[in-house]
């Protein structure tokens, strides 16, 4: 059972670091609180939806910003969606970039938008990796017969 205790401590520390470094915020706690015996995979489900949705949005954004004449309202609409979904799962750093991104859209600043696209891609892939690591840890704990630490 020592192995499980180690893993559980690792998980708790890992989650704490993600909050500390600003990758996740309070909203992620809310998600965890909504997970229970009747909804045991709630967090993974919502986050998976977020991953799918984000990939789609990043593609749309890249396409929209490649156009000869950029439709900034379209770009803004996509960023608005991205901001909403990242905020809903507590992906704090992604959300922050989206806010800056929307400002550039409003100013119709192409360079600013392109910069933000790179930034948001970067932040998204970072938080994606972190969350996947988190879920892996949880899987290991469950596989070893342990239970997830209470949030």
């Amino acid at each position, binding site marked *: 059972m020592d192995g499980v205790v180690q893993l559980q401590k690792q998980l708790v520390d890992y989650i704490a670091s993600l909050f500390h470094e600003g990758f996740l915020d309070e*909203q992620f706690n*809310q*998600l965890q*609180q*909504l997970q229970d015996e*009747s*909804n045991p995979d*709630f967090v993974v*489900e*919502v986050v998976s*939806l*977020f991953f799918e*949705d984000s990939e789609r949005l990043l593609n749309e954004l890249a396409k929209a910003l490649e156009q000869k004449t950029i439709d900034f309202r379209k770009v803004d*609409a996509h960023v*608005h*969606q991205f*901001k*909403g*979904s990242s*905020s*809903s*799962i507590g992906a704090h750093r992604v959300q922050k970039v989206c806010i800056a991104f929307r400002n550039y859209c409003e100013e119709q600043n192409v360079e600013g938008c392109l910069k933000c696209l790179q930034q948001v891609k970067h932040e998204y892939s970072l938080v994606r990796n972190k969350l996947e690591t988190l879920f892996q840890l949880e899987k290991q704990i469950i596989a070893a017969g342990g239970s997830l630490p209470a949030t």
Partner: protein
Amino acid sequence: MELHRDFADTQQKQKQHFHVLAVDDSLIERKLLERLLAESSCKVTCVDSGDKALEYLSLLDSQEIEYSADLSSSPPSAQEEAGYMKVNLIMTDYSMPGMSGYDLLKRVKMQGSSWKDIPVVVMSSENVPSRISMCMEEGAEEFLLKPLQLSDLKKLQPHLLKSLVHPTEDISTSNDHGSDDNKIHDITTLNDSDNVLVSERKVMSPEPLERRPKINGLLVV
């Protein structure tokens, strides 16, 4: 002690039959909202646009006409088993492509609308005071900021009660619905491909509160 009996009866009704129509174009938001509402023992129908919301409300209206012929003297539980359950609350996102939440609100609250008395709650990720007052002026019950949390659902308790009780009665006590032992999860979802087809799972018929098991519905979002 008539009031006490009515209140207990209402609590029973609420735990069994509270039907929320959730309108949001984001899949993630719909999933979150559905889970939050299920946590408060509500039956939830999710749609992804204002147009779909209106279609669904119209569908229920036509079902009501159909069912009331057969079930006019039946209790709500019988109507529900027949698949019909009127909407007690609409929760809509403000910013949606096409018909906005504000447009939907206006349409529901329109003079002569058969849905005028259904409370509407508007949600938005943006805190814009003019937007908020616009919605409240148009008859919104409440304006909630996203992302929604469990504590926001508590704000809705008075509205949940209000629409189940006779309009002239005034119940201002708030309920604690934290108990786990009588959750009913019943989800109906309209997808783009479904038009107005509704896939429903029947809610189990009500049992006395103390002996009701946890009923897990399938989540289709």
